[in-house]
């Protein structure tokens, strides 16, 4: 399951979306997420879907990679749906089983909430699938840089993210190896009471932590040997620069935001379920 999480899984193809500056993509994704909460009509969601579809199509990343992220949060989506379905107070009664009342309004809210979640995940997947982790962390570092004057360690945060991303596959492999080694010694991770199951994790977690600390120490030495001394006077191989392409992206985003707000007012004059 941990492998299904799309975050940090870059999909390498050449597309206009891939070529956008990471900071621009971060900013647009942020705007997109915020505006998502201003959408409250189905016609609005239809428009978001069309726009998102257009972006995905031009990113050249297969749709199933975009949708993979949904699988890991399916539980949350279903849970949100159920809660909203039963707790929304409405007038047009659809179904009544005992004390449970389902109304048209409830169905509408439940649907809208889950659609919003799906769009949120797919939208951020566009960012992570079209941006290499290194550009992403560089982008974050660059955006946070102005805040370093008030004590935000922007370089350190970015370096930590890079190292975490670098070591995730290594530690996953390591976990797999340790599990197999303990299974070969008769460890059982599947059966037993909750307490026994929790205890059975100790033979995995202890070696994993020890190994992670050993790796951290060796990595720190190796970084020092390569003259690492923090972010001061450090240059980068890739110099980020905002080009015409990025201004076009911002213009498109501006149009998008305007339409979202127009549609919001359109919803005031048409019935709620549209």
């Amino acid at each position, binding site marked *: 399951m941990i492998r299904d999480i799309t975050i940090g899984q870059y999909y*390498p193809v050449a597309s206009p979306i891939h070529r956008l500056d990471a900071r621009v993509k971060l900013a647009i994704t942020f705007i997109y997420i915020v505006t998502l909460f201003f959408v409250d009509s189905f016609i609005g969601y239809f428009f978001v879907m069309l726009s998102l579809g257009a972006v995905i199509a031009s990113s050249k990343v297969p749709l199933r990679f975009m949708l993979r992220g949904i699988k890991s949060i399916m539980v949350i989506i279903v849970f949100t749906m159920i809660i909203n379905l039963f707790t929304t107070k409405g007038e047009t009664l659809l179904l009544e089983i005992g004390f449970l009342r389902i109304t048209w309004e409830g169905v509408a809210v439940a649907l809208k909430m889950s659609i919003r979640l799906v769009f949120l995940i797919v939208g951020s997947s566009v960012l992570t699938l079209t941006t*290499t*982790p*290194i550009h992403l962390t560089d982008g974050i570092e660059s955006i946070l840089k102005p805040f370093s004057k008030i004590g935000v360690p922007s370089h350190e945060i970015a370096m930590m993210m*890079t*190292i975490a*991303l*670098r070591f995730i*596959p*290594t530690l996953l*492999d390591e976990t797999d190896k340790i599990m197999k080694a303990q299974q070969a010694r008769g460890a059982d991770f599947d059966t037993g009471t909750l307490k026994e199951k929790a205890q059975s994790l100790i033979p995995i977690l202890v070696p994993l932590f020890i190994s992670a600390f*050993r*790796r951290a120490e*060796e*990595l720190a*030495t*190796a*970084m*020092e*040997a*390569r*003259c*690492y*001394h923090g972010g001061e*006077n*450090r*240059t*980068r*191989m*890739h*110099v980020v620069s905002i080009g015409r392409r990025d201004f076009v992206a911002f213009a498109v985003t501006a149009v998008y935001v305007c339409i979202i707000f127009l549609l919001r007012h359109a919803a005031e004059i048409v019935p709620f379920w549209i």
Partner: protein
Amino acid sequence: MKMVRAQQLSYEYIKTVEKDGVTTEQKLQALKNVNISVEKGEFVAVLGHNGSGKSTFAKHINALLCPTGGTLWVKEMDTKNEELVWDIRQSAGMVFQNPDNQLVATVVEEDIAFGPENLGIESSEIRKRVDDALEQVRMTEFATFTPSKLSGGQKQRIAIAGVLAMKPDCIVLDEPTAMLDPIGRREVMETVHRLNREEGITIILITHYMDEAVRADRVYVIDDGDVVLNGTPKEVFSNVEALKGYGLDVPQVTEVAYLLRREGIPIPADILTVEEMVGALCQLRSTI
């Protein structure tokens, strides 16, 4: 000018031992008055078993450890001088044993750029150095790969490229092949020898594999923190009994030559390769 020169180099550290609830401090000597000198362009192997002090010596060259006695100079720069530490690390790069624990970035070329970025080199120059370094270790087609998809030998070559991009005069390799399979070992050793031969880079190879030391210009054997043997591979490896005493091996052919000499056969003691062995045997057969 000597590339690396150690004079009476000593390193002491304190180990806390807990026994029966009582903590005592023990003073241990990892290096005792070590004298080693390496010329520019040389290929020097430092042999010794685990815990002999050879890795401690390696870390001194990179100023990762500071001597507690004596002095070590890298290109006449005293490693005790804190102001020179970055110049020393740039001049004498270091490659470590575990290929996984020395790569920082998620993309090969970004990792190679890490060193020059730390040195504050201009970005167009970094790009050029990264491309050159990839070419030097023959890994150009892997530039955009993620390190976790590479074999152990390939990862070590990337680590070497990462050092090369800092334009060092000398590379110190601390047991670079200990965790590799035979193919990976061959890849790494060929790369290191080529860099020494073609680029004139001084190589200091720390190892316990005698077959890797055979091709060096000079060999130092360290045991219990002290240099116990040094000379050309032929001079060092003909001391079969002494080497075994230090917990080291000799090549199989060297051992056979040693066994034959004990039986009174006048075969040279300094045989190191299959070809030398075959040649010596054929000659003996025809002269007797």
